[in-house]
């Protein structure tokens, strides 16, 4: 039955609807129940997606919906990441009168991310991006009384409106060139007749639209604001989950256009270098940990784009993409979970000496930042190793050199967080959130370490995997 192909998405969607209904019916004290419902939906979705790992790669629904192992792994990362965010949320939002609805928004955003990952049709992609964007604005501005949160939502919306418009122009242009919105048809049409420049311009528009969801140059400006202003669990969500969906969408686009289009690798590689460099340089001087993580997230998008640029040039690119995404999701969510656990402690100064007062939180934060930096045997190292391997293998060694130089720069600001935590005397009292946030934090930390040691399992799961079409 073709509908079986949609079980993960449908499960999340249904859960979202049930959550909305219960949120409007439940008394305010019991809104936390909605989190449980949402988690249930996500677990069902993840189980269904897990089953899809064994399926043969195929397009469905008239060629608009791709199921292959790369996509399914991405879906698992998306669902797992959302679950972690869900775990940190209830305690954070306990006093919010619209506590229950938050989970519905979160689930709708996840549906958007899943659609981005699975879309094999430009219109489907647009719907995914728009769904993910509109819910994203809401999540960023969820603290209506907080100026920073509202400002983050506003900036997010302004950049998003522009980027989404450009995405639509690109999609329309592609339709004009290929006569179809289906990726399979577009792939056939590339390089046959129409001038390359026209294709490249269309592709650039679509890429800019997706860079917005990735938080990569040139549509990255919302990222630091959202990371700083959004409720901390939502900030963790926005810097991770949509990015996974968009990365796979962009990789798929590379599969469609990259083979025949001469400028594709160059375009993505340029954006990669710009993103990582700009993100790292901007992160250097931040004094707010959340903002610092936001800029770091921009630079991580840059690394990610290296893997995307190598799609079709090196067989290592697809494993690199998924391993990097999984590692980034675990480490970045671990970092935000620590910030959430510490009740949103923002100022870098306030982290001095915390290692004595909060050893486990600081251990997780250290592991997370070292993983983002790429220190072995943490999973972030495996990701960076694979994408450097792909870059050298695919003949763009200078990209690997750029990754190296940027990693060295990034050490400055990661060490600015880590060093004082251990080297300074401890502060008097540290308020923390309850056990759920702690569970999320420890889980994400354990994943960062465990995936590093067990990366072979992930790689074997990806052996011979393809990205359709």
């Amino acid at each position, binding site marked *: 039955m073709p509908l079986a192909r949609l079980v993960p998405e449908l499960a999340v969607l249904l859960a979202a609807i049930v959550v909305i209904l219960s949120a409007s019916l439940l008394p305010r004290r019991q809104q936390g129940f909605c989190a449980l419902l949402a988690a249930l939906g996500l677990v069902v979705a993840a189980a269904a997606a897990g089953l899809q790992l064994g399926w043969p790669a195929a397009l469905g629904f008239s060629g608009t919906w791709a199921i292959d192992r790369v996509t399914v792994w991405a879906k698992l990362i998306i669902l797992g990441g959302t679950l972690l965010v869900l775990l940190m949320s209830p305690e954070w939002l306990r006093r919010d009168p619209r506590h229950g609805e938050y989970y519905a928004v979160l689930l709708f955003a996840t549906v958007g991310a899943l659609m981005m990952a699975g879309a094999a049709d430009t219109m489907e992609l647009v719907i995914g991006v728009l769904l993910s964007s509109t819910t994203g604005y809401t999540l960023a501005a969820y603290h209506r009384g907080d100026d920073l949160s509202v400002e983050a939502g506003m900036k997010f919306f302004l950049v998003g409106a522009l980027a989404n418009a450009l995405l639509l122009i690109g999609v329309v242009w592609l339709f004009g060139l290929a006569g179809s919105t289906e990726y399979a048809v577009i792939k056939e049409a590339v390089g046959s007749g129409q001038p390359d420049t026209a294709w490249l311009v269309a592709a650039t528009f679509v890429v800019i639209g997706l860079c917005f969801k990735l938080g990569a140059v040139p549509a990255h400006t919302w990222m630091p604001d959202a990371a700083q202003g959004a409720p901390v669990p939502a900030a963790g969500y926005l810097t991770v989950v949509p990015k996974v969906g968009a990365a796979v969408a962009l990789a798929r686009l590379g599969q469609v256009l990259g083979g025949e289009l001469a400028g594709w690798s160059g375009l993505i590689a340029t954006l990669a270098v710009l993103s990582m460099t700009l993100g790292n340089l901007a992160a250097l001087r931040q004094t707010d940990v959340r903002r610092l993580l936001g800029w770091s997230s921009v630079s991580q998008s840059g690394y990610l784009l290296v893997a995307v640029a190598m799609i079709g040039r090196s067989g290592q690119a697809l494993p690199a993409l998924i391993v990097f995404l999984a590692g980034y999701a675990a480490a970045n969510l671990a970092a935000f979970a620590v910030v959430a656990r510490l009740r949103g402690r923002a100022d870098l100064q306030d982290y001095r000496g915390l290692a004595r007062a909060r050893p486990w939180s600081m251990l997780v934060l250290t592991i997370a930042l070292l993983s983002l930096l790429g220190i072995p045997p943490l999973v972030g190292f495996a990701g960076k*190793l694979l994408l450097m391997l792909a870059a050298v293998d695919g003949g763009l060694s200078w990209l690997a050199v750029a990754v190296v130089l940027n990693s060295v720069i990034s050490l400055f600001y990661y060490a600015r967080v880590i060093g004082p935590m251990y080297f300074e005397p401890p502060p008097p009292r540290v308020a923390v959130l309850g056990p759920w946030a702690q569970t999320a934090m420890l889980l994400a930390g354990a994943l960062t370490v465990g995936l590093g040691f067990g990366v*072979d399992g992930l790689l074997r799961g990806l052996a011979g995997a393809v990205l359709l079409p």
Partner: protein
Amino acid sequence: MLSATIWVPLIGAVLLAAWRDASPRGLRIAAVLIASIPLVLLVVAWVRFDAAADAPLFQLVEELRWISTLGVAWRLGVDGIALAVASVSALVFVAAVAYPPPNSASDEGRLRHYYAWLLFLDGISLGVFLALDLLLFYVFFDLSLVGMYFLIGRFGHGEDARRAALKFFIYTLGGSLAMLLGIIGLVLATDPLTFDMRTLIAAQPLSGGGTYAGLVLLGLILGLGIKTPIVPFHTWLPPAHVDAPGPASAILAGVLLKMGTYGLVRLPFSMLRETFAHYALPLAIVAVVSIVYGALVAWGQTNLKRRIAYTSVNHMGYVVLGIAAAAGLSGQASARAVALTGATFEMVAHALITGALFLIAGAFWQRGGEYELRAYGGLARRAPRLTGLTVLAAFASLGLPGLAGFVAEFQVFAGAFAVYPWLAAIALLGILITAALFLQMLQLLFFGELPARWSGFADLGWSETLVLCGLLLLVVVLGVYPGWALTVIGATATRLVAG
């Protein structure tokens, strides 16, 4: 067995970090016991090692599956060179752990972490020398930076310690990432992909030469050269040493610097033989610059620790000169084998001697809170044990015959004269200057008037004396009777040079 040498200290580190209500004495004894286990295991390995010409190059090999899709595995094993360097590292760690902890680690919570970090670094460092897998080598290489960063930053003295720790971390991380690029370039030339060092040494994947091989070599040498360090990448070393506590300095000089030179032998020298030989002369020139420049700058230092730190630059220059001479195309195989044996022996000798010197510098800091040479004087009568051991270590470091440093430098020069006579002649200058600077150092510290502020200067305690005697005894033994070590090292060196 080799796995245990790595895991015992690592697990011990975790246990010590979790041992909440331990007495300082109990912690120290436990740490010494844990650190001794790898040393004992390596002595056993030394006994079991077969130095015969027809024995396999790598022995005591252990292999466990890890990332099979990339050809990465937990592979350990030793040849004579790895065995020598690993054993001396394990010894230096025992010495560092047994030495009194610095004042900065005095309270209970910090002391636990101090020993935990030392043991962590112990396991990691042994991993670098025992790894037979390039990725595993890199993993340990990188983790050693993290361990040292925390040791310097947390237990170093003064405000500058953090900056020195960061500088160390950034320089060496940059280096290790450059090395990683080289490793990637090297490994990608194999099909199917493998990080197995034995396969890479046998296959010589980039033997055609050319730009690509040159770039791979550049990445490797850059990374390992920063760690060694060779001029001009040495600037991270003096601040890291000055601000690190004495035992950490001893480890930095005795163990971590060896990772650079050991890596030079293990990676480019063995795996890129042709290309390395092609660029051996420039490397030898850089080594000679390191030798002379390191000695001259050391002479100019008035700070005890900075002076010793710069002599490390000088001594590591001898090691690099030996390695370059061993790779040189012009010399005879036997002379080149002598040069490589000498380079390895210098690594061992330098670890013992400079380790001891830095521990002595730590003793000065514990007592005086001062490294300025001119602040001291006339201590010979006040502290005879300290004086005697410092004199012995200093003479060993300047290469007095009968001590280990002489054997090493003699072999390096014997080999280097056969391959690059002119360079070796210039490098001899380094020995002269080193002799001058150590004699001047001894004079400033121990002779002349005793300043009034040091009238209560305490001599070495029994544990300090014991540790230093242990290290220096081996220096004497290796200087008088080096044959047993030279056989093992020489057997491997001959095979590596022959290819």
